[in-house]
């Protein structure tokens, strides 16, 4: 994949932003300000961001709990994410749910649930709609190594293949499902082989090398977008933290973690950029300053946001009557449709940042060129 310098810096910015949002979330957790569990994707940045970078307008992602990078790449709002962690009344779930279980269909993000694997059949339904409406858009559905052991994973892959659905499946094999290492989960070397059982092309790739991830996923996207049906890419990466921040992960051999920390995707990409002379100190400082400002803003926005009102606890269980638009079609956000706005609040969905510049980096220096 040929990438312009601006794209490379954008990828680097998203990787740094993802890491920084999660680092700050962990700090908030340690300070007792996050009420529930914290799950991070540290080490997944190359996979999550690299995969999502291959998408274009109209495509839809079905990200899971370690896919903050995918959210941000598709315009996800760091403020919304912080409001989720801090259980605010204006979070995308209005405090009903935590973690990254957030989405906005109009911006192509499907919210997930904690039963991993269950999002894959849902992704099939999204892709089925695209097929029925004769679009050239695709769905990207990631899951972890653990989820590949569930029934819905296999039902989803099979259905997608039989129906020739436009889905790219990404397996983020990070070595562990909670404390269970891969050798206790499956008896094959490469999870990409699972696709063979469904007549689906697949490959596996170093999930900590963002350019390699993009090359492999780009091939899968090209196959799928051409109407040939689903494709799968296994990205081999590592979960550097515990399953959640409550998990010390002392079951991970220290030398194994050390080995993967040396393969940290951000450090590697940084070295790659520096070697090519694309990341001078000034630009790096500019990126760090922007990352810090965006994270600070997100945290202060969330901290100054109201808690949900307990009196609303039984609200919003059922959607109101009225016409429903088909997502992605002209006029779909006309307020006369029940699914145009978030009818719980009467406002637009707020998973995606209103100010797109939050997730876009444009170096001053590049601009001058």
């Amino acid at each position, binding site marked *: 994949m040929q990438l312009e310098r601006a794209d490379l810096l954008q990828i680097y910015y998203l990787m740094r932003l993802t890491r920084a949002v999660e680092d700050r979330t962990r700090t908030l957790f340690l300070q007792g300000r996050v009420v529930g569990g914290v799950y991070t994707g540290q080490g997944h940045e190359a996979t999550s961001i690299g995969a999502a970078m291959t998408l274009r307008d109209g495509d839809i992602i079905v990200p899971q709990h370690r896919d903050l990078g995918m959210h941000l790449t598709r315009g996800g709002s760091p403020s919304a994410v912080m409001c989720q962690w801090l259980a605010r009344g204006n979070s995308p779930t209005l405090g009903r749910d935590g973690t990254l279980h957030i989405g906005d269909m109009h911006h192509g993000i499907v919210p997930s649930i904690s039963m991993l694997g*269950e999002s894959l059949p849902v992704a*099939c339904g*999204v892709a089925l709609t695209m097929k029925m409406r004769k679009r050239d858009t695709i769905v990207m559905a990631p899951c972890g190594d653990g989820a590949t052991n569930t029934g819905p994973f296999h039902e*989803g892959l099979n259905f997608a293949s039989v129906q020739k659905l436009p889905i790219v499946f990404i397996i983020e094999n990070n070595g562990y499902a909670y404390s269970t290492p891969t050798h206790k989960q499956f008896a094959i070397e490469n999870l990409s082989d699972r696709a063979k059982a469904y007549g689906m092309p697949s490959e596996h790739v170093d999930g900590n090398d963002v350019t390699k991830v993009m090359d492999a996923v780009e091939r899968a996207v090209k196959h799928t977008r051409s109407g040939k049906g689903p494709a799968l890419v296994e990205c081999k990466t590592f979960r550097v933290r515990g399953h959640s921040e409550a998990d010390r992960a002392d079951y991970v051999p220290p030398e194994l973690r050390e080995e993967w920390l040396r393969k940290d995707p951000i450090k590697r990409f940084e070295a790659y950029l520096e070697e090519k002379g694309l990341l001078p100190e000034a630009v790096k400082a500019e990126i760090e300053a922007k990352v810090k400002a965006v994270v600070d803003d997100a945290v202060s926005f969330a901290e100054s946001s109201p808690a949900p009102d307990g009196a609303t606890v039984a609200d919003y*269980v*059922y959607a109101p009557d009225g016409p429903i638009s*088909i997502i992605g079609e002209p006029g779909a956000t006309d307020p006369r449709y029940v699914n145009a706005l*978030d*009818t719980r609040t009467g406002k637009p969905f707020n998973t995606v940042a209103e100010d797109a510049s939050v997730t876009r980096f444009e170096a001053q220096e590049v601009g001058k060129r």
Partner: protein
Amino acid sequence: MTAVTYLEAIGQAMREEMRRDETVFLLGEDVGTYGGAFKVNVGLLEEFGPERVIDTPMAEAAIIGSAVGAAIMGMRPIAEMQFIDFITCGFDQIVNMASKFYWRSGIPAPMVIRGPSGGGVKGGPFHSLSPEAWFFHVPGIKVVVPSTTYDAKGLLKAAIRDNNPVLYLEHKLLYRMPELREELPGEDYIVPIGKAIIRRPGDDMTILTYGTMVHQSLKAAQTLEEEDDISAEVLDLRSLVPLDREAILESVKRTNKVLIVHEDTLTGGVGAELSAILAEDLFEYLDGPIMRVAAPDAPFPYAPPLEDAFLPNADKILVAARKLAAY
């Protein structure tokens, strides 16, 4: 106009809704070429093609999950369970995915899950289920149970047009029952979800029931009038979620006695919740104990004498009603 069966009414509802709204489509096992295990969908594939009448692999999580995915895109899928018993294989997609979607994200999931439920056809433990209590307990989904041909069509149309996941439980024993043949209105109509109906008015007690037990209750009420001079009102709930509390309370306030009848097993069934509502809201109106007739707390059996012993029927309802009337 010719009288149609309950089964044909279901087919008509789907056909008319698919003609009216291009976002409506059907998916499930053997629903297309074969027309469904009970031939409910005969003719739909020919009229609407394989893109809107989708024969799926044998995979309920994929069927229901795909329906959820299409619904959040703004489509109105109908997911057919070949037998409603198999809904357990897609349970998570209903109770965790579909039911909570709007509540947690603001994104509506307008979809229907339907399939043949109930016993009386020697289906044994895995083809006779009345699954309503599991879903009755889950906030975020609606549950409807038609007992007549008119309602079978009208409730399905209402379910398809609803913006929430709706579980539509059709009873396989009623599919081709000759007594249920009915001439249906030529014009479009719906039966609103959440509205019960008095099938037989009465003064001495209310029989709260739904589904196929409506017919057994009506039979018992007829005998009560003829042999015991007892006037029993039969209230067909039609919709379990939301419940028509107003109609339930109004009836029982008048009759002061209540017998609850359902085909599903007793413990933790819909009748248990109805009993609690009545005990809380109408304590001072009740002139006798709230009584229930339901299947015993055992799995659904196969052999005819066991099935007969298991299923509630007019005779069992009669015994309970006479006991209640004696108070």
